[in-house]
């Protein structure tokens, strides 16, 4: 991660980011109903309990990360783009857990990395605690990084096997000048380990000497070492044994309460996300299709994709399983290098209509208190005015 920090600092593509931002901005205002619903200011005006405007820690506006597809050996040319993240607007409030779900390849990880600028966004901006981090460079960027940390899916591959736990933890502290003295550093290390439930003796061990769950605790301690405000946790429990996942999920919740942390939790497991998140954003092919509170998303999903996704999750309860009405989607996820026109879900949507769906890209618009949906027909579907129909599976080739 330190290496990544070093390289990304060099390639600050702020120039192009600004240009793309204009495009994204035009897009937002381009529709009728959407209005300014996309930004934090608009949402918090509704006065949603504790969430006043200054409670927003992160604002993401029109974020885009397009990866060029290069061909040719001698003369490399760009033959297209993978639209990994393609226009995301969201806000994360201080102290909350925002869960990002979606299927493999929909851009969750890239979104998290783009937010932290571990990958350079090609458009849009990220405002962190009133500072536009999209334009930060060099030392100021490095400093702002202390406040935003990441936890990875596979604890083993994200920890250097040759480094002892002590040196893994001290590294980040040193980089940000937090290792003030031998005594206090030592005390801090012990405190860190204690807070993630590891004994002091862990300091002199190496990552391979720990179980998967313990390694994830080390990853969490490393993130905490620099006293961040925001933690982006990318699939924090999906590599762990089922019996160990709950330990780590509880730990994350406990730390949040104690330290007032803000989380962006990225996961493909809906049950995990539903459990840990206050609010959830559902991604499909690079953009958000729905956003709501965790309870509302479960009780009243409005976007056809969210409905299908929720209905597909197997629940360890035979009675629920027997009675469940599944919305089976046909076909595969289209390639993010060649996303469908109009609504990106129209090739698989069981509610697709003959107008708008394959021509106009639906804006993420507010349909209820804190509930946003990107579907032209969300209200009609909710009211039962249009019903589900069969979909012919469309073929998708994995390599583009």
């Amino acid at each position, binding site marked *: 991660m330190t290496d990544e920090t070093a390289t990304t600092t060099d390639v600050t593509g702020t120039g192009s980011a600004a240009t793309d931002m204009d495009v994204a901005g035009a897009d937002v205002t381009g529709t009728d109903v959407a209005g300014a619903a996309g930004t934090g200011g608009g949402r918090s005006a509704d006065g949603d309990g504790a969430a006043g405007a200054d409670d927003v820690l992160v604002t993401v506006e029109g974020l885009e990360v397009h990866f060029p597809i290069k061909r040719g050996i001698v003369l490399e040319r760009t033959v297209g783009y993978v639209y990994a993240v393609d226009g995301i607007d969201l806000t994360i409030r201080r102290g909350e857990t925002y869960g990002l779900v979606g*299927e*493999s390849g929909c851009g969750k990880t890239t979104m998290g990395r783009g937010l932290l600028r571990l990958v350079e966004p090609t458009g849009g901006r990220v405002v962190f605690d009133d500072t536009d981090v999209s334009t930060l460079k060099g030392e100021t960027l490095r400093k702002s990084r202390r406040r935003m940390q990441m936890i990875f899916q596979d604890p083993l591959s994200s920890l250097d096997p040759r480094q002892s736990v002590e040196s893994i933890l001290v590294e980040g502290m040193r980089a940000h000048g937090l290792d003030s003295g031998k005594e206090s550093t030592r005390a801090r290390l012990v405190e860190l380990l204690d807070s993630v439930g590891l004994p002091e003796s862990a300091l002199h061990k190496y990552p391979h000497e720990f*179980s*998967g*769950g*313990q390694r994830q605790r080390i990853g969490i301690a490393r993130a905490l070492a620099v006293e961040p405000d925001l933690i982006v946790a990318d699939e924090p429990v999906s590599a762990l*044994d*089922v*019996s*160990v*996942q*709950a*330990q780590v*999920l*509880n730990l994350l*919740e406990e730390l949040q309460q104690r330290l007032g942390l803000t989380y962006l939790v990225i996961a*493909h*497991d*809906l*049950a*995990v996300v*539903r*459990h*840990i998140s206050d609010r959830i954003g559902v991604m499909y092919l690079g953009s958000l299709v729905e956003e709501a509170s*965790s*309870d509302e998303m*479960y009780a009243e999903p409005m976007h056809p994709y969210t409905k*299908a*996704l*929720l*209905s*597909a*999750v*197997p*629940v*360890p*309860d*035979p*009675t*629920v*399983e*027997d009675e*469940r009405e*599944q919305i*089976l*989607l*046909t*076909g*595969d*996820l289209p390639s993010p290098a060649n996303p469908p026109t109009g609504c990106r879900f129209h090739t698989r949507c069981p509610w697709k209509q003959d107008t708008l769906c394959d021509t106009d890209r639906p804006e993420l618009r507010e349909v209820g208190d804190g509930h946003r949906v990107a579907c032209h027909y969300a209200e009609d579907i909710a009211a039962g005015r249009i019903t589900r129909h069969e979909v*012919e*599976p*469309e*073929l*998708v*080739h*994995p*390599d583009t």
Partner: protein
Amino acid sequence: MALLDVRDLSVVFKRKGTRPFTAVDGVSFSVEPGQTVGLVGESGSGKSVTSLAIMGLLPKRGAEIGGSVTFSDTELLTLSDKQLRDRRGRDLGMVFQDPLSSLNPVITIGLQITEVLERHRGMTRKEARVEAAELLDRVGLPDPQRRIDEYPHQLSGGMRQRVLIAIALACRPKLLIADEPTTALDVTIQAQILSLLSELVSETDTALIMITHDLGVVAGLCDDVNVMYGGRIVERAQRHDLFERSRHPYTHGLLQSIPRLNAPRGEPLTPIRGSVSDNIEWEQGCAFAPRCPNATDVCWSEPPELKADDGRMLRCHNPVAIGDAVTEGAL
């Protein structure tokens, strides 16, 4: 008479310079025609080794197999390689987790199916091709006439898994073993594959052994469920009994610890303490003892036997009390 009867199956891996490792220990269960039996347990609990032993796919050297596996009255463990291959082709089908590594990358999917049809069902090439296209259509591969000439890498993960199921079905097996067939897939694709499997099972009376670490998958699909821990079956019950009143502390703990989509938010989870690396040897006592909230002295010194109790099989000295066994979330 059961279609498949596994009795006291054990698999010990022996390698020079290392201690023998018992991956599967005294596993017994049976499968009736048309029945779906689940094998659940977390990573390393011996699920795959059990299925490989049944299929005769474990390496000859280094793996010592004990017990018996009877399939339609034939003992499989003593068959010659050739007899076994024949049997496998005709009556037993297997679907693995990773379709790409179990498909031949340089042969079209059509040929991979027609090969089976020609060898095991004595079809001509022409007949086989027609049947292959039908099979692909049956497993829901769109546009099979065209896809039949494509290579595995040209298909998505979900479509590859369908092809693998088509291959497994080509010989009209009486028993299909699916080892984590959906673990590598997205949840919406998983739903497609699971509904395909249960449809096939009910239409053709094929028996199915479903191996997975996902309790949700088992809850909807299986008639009987075996829970494995450290190479042994610790609880076996019909799915409603197992999920609504789990009696083994491990099963119960697992069901309490997993986040549920249908549970209200805000309740902390009840984790199982420790990890499998804390296990003690089964020879010594109950492997789960270091993690078990019900453990007493006897658990550390006496290995529990698998015994019939409360309409199920249980391997435990102090099962969860019947009143406490109702699993939260069961509506």
